[in-house]
């Protein structure tokens, strides 16, 4: 005996799905914005954990090393962690979070690019021990950022299906 199966509401589902396709890039961008915000906060928080010591010259001849000075840490903490312009390609959206366009700061009467200070602390130099706080923030912030993005997508999806 042949069975017959009927599904109601297929038209609405397909309508919603077609709407979703249209709105996908906007939804993705909104979610990405939320996630990038979480990452930027994580980097800012991690900057608070940089170890410092009062500034002293590290003798190059004797191969001495030093810690970042409190002034350098203050510059990094006050610098705005930037979110780059969103790069859209179809439904794909990507961005980057960091200090690339953080600008310049006054340090010991000199104007120094902030990315240079951040890089010296984050990557280390021959006279400064590395404190990779940006990577640490990326590690601990990734799961939170994914959660934030999920919540944003779900909220958008609910608004769309209503």
């Amino acid at each position, binding site marked *: 005996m042949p069975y017959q199966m009927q599904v109601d509401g297929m038209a609405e589902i397909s309508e919603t799905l077609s709407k979703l396709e249209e709105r996908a890039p906007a939804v993705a961008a909104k979610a990405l914005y939320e996630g990038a915000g979480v990452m930027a906060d994580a980097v800012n928080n991690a900057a608070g954990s940089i170890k410092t010591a009062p500034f002293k010259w590290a003798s190059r001849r004797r191969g001495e*090393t030093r810690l970042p000075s409190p002034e350098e840490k203050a510059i990094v903490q006050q610098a705005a962690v930037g979110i780059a312009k969103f790069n859209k390609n179809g439904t794909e959206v990507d961005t980057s979070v960091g200090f690339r366009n953080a600008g310049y700061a006054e340090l010991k009467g000199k104007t120094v690019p902030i990315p240079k200070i951040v890089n010296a602390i984050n*990557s*280390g130099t*021959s*006279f400064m021990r590395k404190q990779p706080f940006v*990577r640490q923030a990326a590690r601990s912030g990734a799961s939170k950022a994914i959660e934030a993005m999920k919540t944003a997508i779900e909220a958008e999806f609910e608004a769309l299906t209503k």
Partner: protein
Amino acid sequence: MPSEYEALVAALKLTDIPFAEYGWKTRPEGAYGVISLEGESGHLDGDGEKLDRAWEGSIDLFYPKLTDRGDLIEEVEETLAAICGNSWELNSTQYEDSTGLFHVEWVFEVMDTPEPEEAETTPGEGDQNAVSDAG
């Protein structure tokens, strides 16, 4: 400490480049390296336990401008490939204006898998299995 990290430190210390963990108090002349373990980057859970853990760390290589860089980079990368498989990358290359040193940075991930024999069988169970296999 993860076992692969211990192996990596031991292997790097066998190379011609002087290597130290977590930085030098007084850095040596010429080329030198630093290896550090930075934290846990991921874990696989089961039965309320961490079954597998991945740790992230980095290797920094400094060498003066005019040294024969020769096989310095290859030596580090071959060591990384031998111990970490493919879970490493060259993170950045930099040049320090003030000291004239090149700085190459790698980030790697190592595993810390508990020994299976210790966890799986108690001595009693092992004996029983041996008997049943023989039968």
